[in-house]
């Protein structure tokens, strides 16, 4: 009896506190932690999201860059921040799915430590092969991989999205190639250009559209990319393989749902706007809004997919 009363009392108190927080929120500037250097893709997207949230809630949203260790430094800081609605985090599937899966030093839990607010864009991954190999299409590429045991692919490093996507592709097509890591995806691309490695599967391949040194075989996204309407999708070609990175806003676990809802709303409007769509397409991305629940869901789903790839290919950092 007593304990029930206590629970009820605590429950009422908590609701009251939440309501209070929602009423007053936000009465001071909000900090958005970005786990990468200023000027990069994630940072540019984060700044657009910060402006949109700021316009909605009437308080400045200050971007704080905390780069390091592939985004883990910033994500750790955000995970440990107070869940008072004044610290939010702009992450992606590297910080909120891949790193926790492969990096044993990561202290935060992608599900337990964060509440999703929204996603704002998807990355579009393309399969690019050295043009000198004479591979014309995806079928030809799969045959090539089966015939050439010594094929190598380049990535931006161990545990990079490029490695996961390539391993996924090979897992699903029953092929095999040797992983060669580079310092960043641009150096890996230079290696594909010179045929030091034969292929890569990475969003950066988009920048080689029209090049005579790299042949872009397919896009691993549900629909053709507006920037490259001539490049077919994997599913069109009969390969049911889509795997995309995404970018999104998170709050430390336990942040007031009303505050999250207001921020989600602001981001929904932003993603729908023409200016934003144009801007993200120029950056080679695909604008994609997921609400708070859908963001949590995509994290959970990706954790499963990527864990399966990790287990099959043995990717890890220790």
């Amino acid at each position, binding site marked *: 009896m007593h304990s029930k009363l206590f629970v009820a009392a605590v429950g009422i108190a908590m609701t009251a506190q939440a309501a209070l927080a929602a009423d007053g929120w936000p009465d001071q500037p909000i900090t958005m932690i970005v786990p990468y250097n200023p000027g*990069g893709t994630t940072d540019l997207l984060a700044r657009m999201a910060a402006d949109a949230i700021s316009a909605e809630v009437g308080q400045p949203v200050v971007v704080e860059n905390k780069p390091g260790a592939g985004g883990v430094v910033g994500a*750790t800081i955000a995970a440990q921040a107070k869940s008072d609605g004044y610290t939010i985090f702009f992450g992606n599937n590297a910080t909120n799915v891949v790193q926790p899966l492969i990096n044993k030093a990561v202290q935060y839990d992608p599900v337990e430590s964060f509440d999703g607010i929204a996603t704002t864009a998807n990355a579009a991954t393309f399969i690019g092969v050295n043009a000198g190999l004479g591979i014309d299409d995806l079928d030809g590429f799969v045959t090539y991989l089966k015939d050439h045991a010594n094929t190598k692919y380049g990535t931006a490093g*161990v545990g990079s999205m490029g490695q996961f996507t390539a391993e996924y592709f090979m897992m699903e097509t029953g092929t095999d190639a040797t992983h060669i890591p580079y310092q960043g995806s641009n*150096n890996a691309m230079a290696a594909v250009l010179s045929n030091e490695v034969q292929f890569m599967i990475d969003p950066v391949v988009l*920048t080689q559209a029209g*090049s005579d040194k790299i042949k872009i075989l397919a896009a691993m996204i549900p629909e053709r990319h507006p920037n490259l309407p001539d490049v077919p999708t994997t599913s069109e070609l009969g390969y049911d393989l889509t795997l995309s990175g995404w970018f999104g806003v998170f709050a430390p676990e336990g942040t007031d749902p009303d505050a999250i809802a207001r921020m989600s709303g602001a981001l929904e409007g932003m993603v729908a706007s023409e200016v934003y769509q144009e801007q993200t397409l120029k950056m080679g991305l695909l604008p994609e809004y997921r609400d708070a629940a859908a963001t949590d869901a995509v994290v959970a789903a990706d954790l499963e997919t990527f864990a399966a790839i990790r287990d099959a290919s043995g990717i890890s*950092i220790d």
Partner: protein
Amino acid sequence: MIDNLLLGFQVALSAETLLYCFIGVSIGMFIGVLPGVGPLAAISMLLPMTYYVSPTSALVMLAGIYYGAQYGGSVASILLRLPGTASSAVICLDGYEMTKKGRAGAALMLSALASFIGGSIGILLMAAFSPTLSEMALKFGSQEYFMLMALGLVAASTLSEGSAIRGLAMVVVGVVLGLVGIDLTSGAMRFTYGNFELMDGVSLVASAMGLFGLAEILANIGQGERATPSSKITLRSMMPTRKELRDSFPAIWRGSAIGSFFGALPGTGSTIASFFSYATENRISRNRDTMGQGAVEGVAGPEAANNSAAQTAFIPTLTLGVPGDAVMALLLGAMMVHGVTPGPQMLTQSADMFWGLVASFWLGNLILLVFNIPMIGLWVAMLRIPYRLLYPAIVVLIVIGTYSIRYSIFDVYQLLAFGVLGFVLRVLRFPTAPLVLGLVLGPLMEENFRRSMMLSDGQFSTFVTRPISCGLLIVIAAILLAQMLLAVTAWRRADSEKETSTP
């Protein structure tokens, strides 16, 4: 090419482009002078503002920041032994010695001149041979990069004021420090002790800043107030003597060639270029015996090298769409935001932009040169500020600069640790430049060696069967052999002298 250049100058000389070029190079020069604050921070902060101007103007300005910083970087190196950018660290060695001899003005003048010539040569190569040079860059695979780095390390052992053994020992310390962080090839964490901020390795800027600048300040604290520099700032003290000019020019040509080469290779860049140039001058210049004691070649060569590298770095970025370093990646991102796709088609599809950029680079270099000369007097006058005022101000600047790289207080601790280390090494008479070079080259060398092994399935012969790699190997062997022969002759001579002197 002449037609193209005319088109380029038409674009570059429009009032708007010229204005943005001027703004860019001024900002670049200013942040170059500030210790620690590099072009990366400045460009990333200004990037969002450029969305509202035309793509050409935006890129002209952002690029201006990049090469402008190379001009400014050497100012603090020469005056205060404080590298403004990592690529001007090596200029501290002789530049600061020149300052101590009262030749600060001349050193700054030579560095401005070397920068201009180096930059102009880089631009000329870019205008004439961009497609050829990018083809050449693609011929350099992991094996070739490894051999280049090995050549650098062999040359580095001579980067010292004192004995070669001490220099070599410092290279090894640098390479060992370079092991810290996530191993690129395996993903293993090395010497990070669970610290996330060590996962990206030891900070290059913090180490250069600490070992050179902070150590210099620590060493001078005990020595009391220095006498105000003897040199009055007359026009004469600023002008290099005829001999200084004559000695500088060969170094400038060599530096420009070295810089243009390394700039065009994605993944190397101006820091490595300036170290290579210094090592070259240390071996073959006329004044090699006085290197490290204020030889003009030690300023002119590396300064020409880092500026020509800053220009040719645009070649792989613009013609292949492959940026060579973080700043270039940022510029490439900026182009994409503006709807320009760099790559093979840029020369045809966005010809006006490409040639506009080339022409604006040269105008920017000209602005920097003209702008720099009257500034020299002002910079030198800075030396008259008493140490008790100057030093605290510098320490504050270094700390802010280091913090600003990734907004991390941990980097400031690294800076302080390197400052103390630099001071201790100085007292023990160990040279610090080889340490920085080891830190720059070590990780690159390891990465490329292990990648070569993975690519060749563990065959060491891969280094010999590839022609360029084999050629580099022969050069390395020749240098080592020559060094041994020299040592043996010197030893024999000393031996026979001892014999004759003993009655």
